[in-house]
């Protein structure tokens, strides 16, 4: 019964667009081999700089690769990087934030000062530095984005954990014999989700943009299809009139980000409403 209710909420008119958009991207990512008509990075699968046609629905680039295939495979890269980095960030944020907020004291001070530091350095530039020096491949990008995703989430988890640990239900749990670990994971964690999940989704969308941006700058993985890589190729050809190389991959990227942010926005409004 609960599931059905949740499904209905998810598919309310307001959410039809973002949910179906994300579903399409997810299907692209999972079934790329079956959907993409050509190997994404193979050159010369069609004529050079061909506008959208029946054989190449999103056209081709200046080396004759199929753009639609790149968009399909790029979904895989985007979702892989977004989810991996988001989850790394979330894992770090939960393990630091929950304990920092619950136990307080010096550990908390140390963690929060580190968060402040991370939030006040220009992260995007720092990521470029790291990628230049340590080499750029898809795993490194996901790792580095993940290692820079935790500060904001940690701050939120920590402040939630701090205020929740003062609640009487925490004292009540201790009174029935619950240990600290049990309190943190059974009593505090379930109440932290509402604040963190929207932020987690924002993090994923931010990291997808960052990945495409890095790829656009040539700091991505040269051997992996990525929306940013396709856009970079097209930006070098658009004086030749290749609008399709700019429009389609960018549109898919932007719609994905908008969808993630819309859902995150929706979750926030849903949660603040039930609180009142």
């Amino acid at each position, binding site marked *: 019964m609960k599931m059905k209710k949740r499904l209905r909420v998810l598919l309310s008119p307001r959410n039809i667009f973002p949910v179906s958009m994300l579903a399409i991207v997810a299907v692209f990512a999972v079934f790329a081999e079956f959907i993409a008509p050509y190997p994404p990075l193979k050159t010369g699968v069609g004529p050079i700089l061909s506008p959208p046609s029946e054989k190449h629905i999103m056209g081709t680039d200046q080396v004759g690769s199929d753009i639609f295939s790149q968009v399909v495979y790029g979904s895989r890269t985007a979702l892989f990087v977004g989810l991996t980095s988001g989850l790394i960030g979330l894992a770090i944020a939960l393990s630091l934030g929950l304990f920092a907020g619950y136990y307080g004291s010096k550990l908390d001070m140390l963690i929060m000062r580190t968060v402040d530091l991370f939030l006040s350095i220009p992260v995007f530039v720092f990521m470029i530095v790291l990628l230049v020096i340590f080499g750029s491949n898809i795993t490194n990008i996901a790792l580095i984005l993940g290692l820079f995703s935790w500060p904001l989430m940690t701050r939120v988890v920590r402040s939630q954990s701090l205020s929740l640990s003062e609640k009487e239900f925490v004292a009540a749990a201790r009174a029935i014999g619950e240990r600290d670990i049990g309190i943190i994971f059974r*009593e505090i964690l379930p109440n932290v989700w509402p604040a963190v999940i929207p932020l987690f989704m924002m993090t994923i969308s931010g990291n997808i943009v960052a990945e495409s941006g890095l790829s656009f700058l040539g700091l991505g993985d040269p051997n992996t299809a990525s929306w940013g890589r396709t856009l970079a190729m097209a930006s070098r050809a658009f004086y030749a009139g290749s609008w399709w190389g700019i429009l389609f991959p960018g549109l898919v990227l932007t719609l994905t980000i908008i969808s993630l942010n819309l859902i995150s926005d929706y979750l926030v409004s849903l949660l603040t409403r039930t609180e009142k």
Partner: protein
Amino acid sequence: MKEEYPLVEAKKLKKYFRETSLLGKVIKTTKAVDDVSFSIGRREKFCIVGESGSGKTTLARILAGLLDYDEGELFLDGERYKDLLEKDRKGFRRKVQIIFQDPYSSINPRKSVREFLERPLKLHGISFSRSDLLNILESVGLSPAEEIMNRMPWELSGGQRQRLFIARAISLNPELLIADEPVSMLDVTVRAQILSLMNRLYEDRGMSIVLISHDMLTVNVFCDRVAVMYLGKFVEIGKARDVYSSPIHPYSELLVKSTLKPDPGIRGKVDLPEKEELGSIPAVGCRFQPRCIYSVQRCALEEPILREVSQGRSVACHVKGVSRS
């Protein structure tokens, strides 16, 4: 059962809260519980009464083993609290349970009634069936139990929440049940119901109850014995009936007088003179002296100690206690 000991015995119990600056310098000390001694017998309904800020909630949390005390000793069945919590934490938790003031904040909003009720039983390895849970719910007057068991906390009223909380507390069959103002956040209409529920559970199970309250009338109706607490100290202890009908300490008198006000809403809020903030306890003399209408010079110089004035009745006052004895 070690019948030779009282269930709870407190000797010179102290709990100070210290506010420190960043450098660790003590800025302000709050004497929440300051040198308090008492004992609670088996099957006794013991009350602690006082205004907010008197330290009664701190004392309740110490009694429930949720807060450490700084000095003095506290025994349960003749064993030190600190030892029990270290050696046999679970055993201690089963024996001592607490009910909180605000049922809206004492129940985790993310747990269903069932999860909430099951947790202590699982934690203590007590086997139970579905009908056991239903019985517990029925026993606190939550019916239809079947339906309520699947509800989420926000689908319950304040009174129902407090009943649920009581249900969980008694499911472990505690020997000592501490109730920290269990009705003060509830609607006036359900207060009496909750109190009579607690009384019925007491009749059925025979545990000791410590009721924390600010209302002398509740105390008089519910308790056997009462301790009147003011700024961290007990100023009067005696049979609830006696203290209510003839309070000796000027502060007890003030609390009893406040129950005679027509509007139950203001009950417990004692009028003039203004109550002192905890922590601004006078350095010397009686702590009630600034508000006392009977005070003499001695009260400002010397702190009165709790002395027995008659069988089972102790008072800490230079003026009133003496004249009675």
